[in-house]
């Protein structure tokens, strides 16, 4: 188990955990981003965990692009909407 209070680059591991989402999403201020990167550069555990976190986010985004769901959902919805319109839905 890592020492989560270990300080590297001016940040503790637990601080990096808190900043990780914003770091991966590119939403950190430049000064904080530089500190996180300094920490990651000197902390193998956080560097590895950050890589895993980033890979999960990438996999989720890739999953959507690779979802080649059949158009049947759209087709059935349009059929149901046509019926609703015919039934007088305004």
């Amino acid at each position, binding site marked *: *188990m*890592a020492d989560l209070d270990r300080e590297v680059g001016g940040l503790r591991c637990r601080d990096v955990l808190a900043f990780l*989402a914003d770091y991966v999403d590119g939403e950190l201020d430049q000064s904080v981003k530089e500190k996180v990167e300094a920490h990651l550069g000197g902390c193998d555990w956080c560097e590895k965990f950050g890589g895993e*976190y980033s890979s999960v986010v990438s996999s989720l985004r890739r999953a959507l692009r690779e979802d080649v*769901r059949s158009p049947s959902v759209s087709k059935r*919805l349009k059929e149901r*909407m046509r019926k609703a319109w015919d039934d007088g839905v305004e």
Partner: protein
Amino acid sequence: MTETASDSELLRLSAEGDRAAFTSFMNRYAAPVHRFLVALGANEDDAEDALQECFISAWRGAGTYRGRGSARAWLFTIARHAHRRQYRRRVGEPAQVESLEVLGERAGWGTPADFTAAFEAAEELNWVLGQLPKEEREVVVLRDLEGLTGAETANVLGVSVASMKSRLHRGRLRLMGVLRRGEGARG
């Protein structure tokens, strides 16, 4: 013409009763909204019912869309309400109040191990998402799967951007923990 029109234009025409415009709008969003509903835990039948309810509400309410936020976020908000109405009487999930550190440790923080994240089928992804509390599941689906912006996601959920980010981070960490624990269960 409607295939290239903006969402706002399609909704403006829909509000005037233009069914072709609304059909184009459905073509654009039926699959993402259905995917969202399934990821929230709806079975196929419930998802299709909620999908229809969502688009009937959108058809009826097209004139109320003012174009201040994205039409996509507006539609996901309607879908979320349709889903909540459907599941209102079902037992809620217990609040999950683990600290970020606990979630992080379950996700592998501080205990390095070989780890790969890949979702080879929609069913596998839905299984993993189904292990998350609903509040975290919906934010992960909207932000990471559907690609809504942070502001759009917060808008759909009716929470601040800061609250949305907190839920998102917790949801991602919990999802990592599920992936680590659930290799066998996913089969």
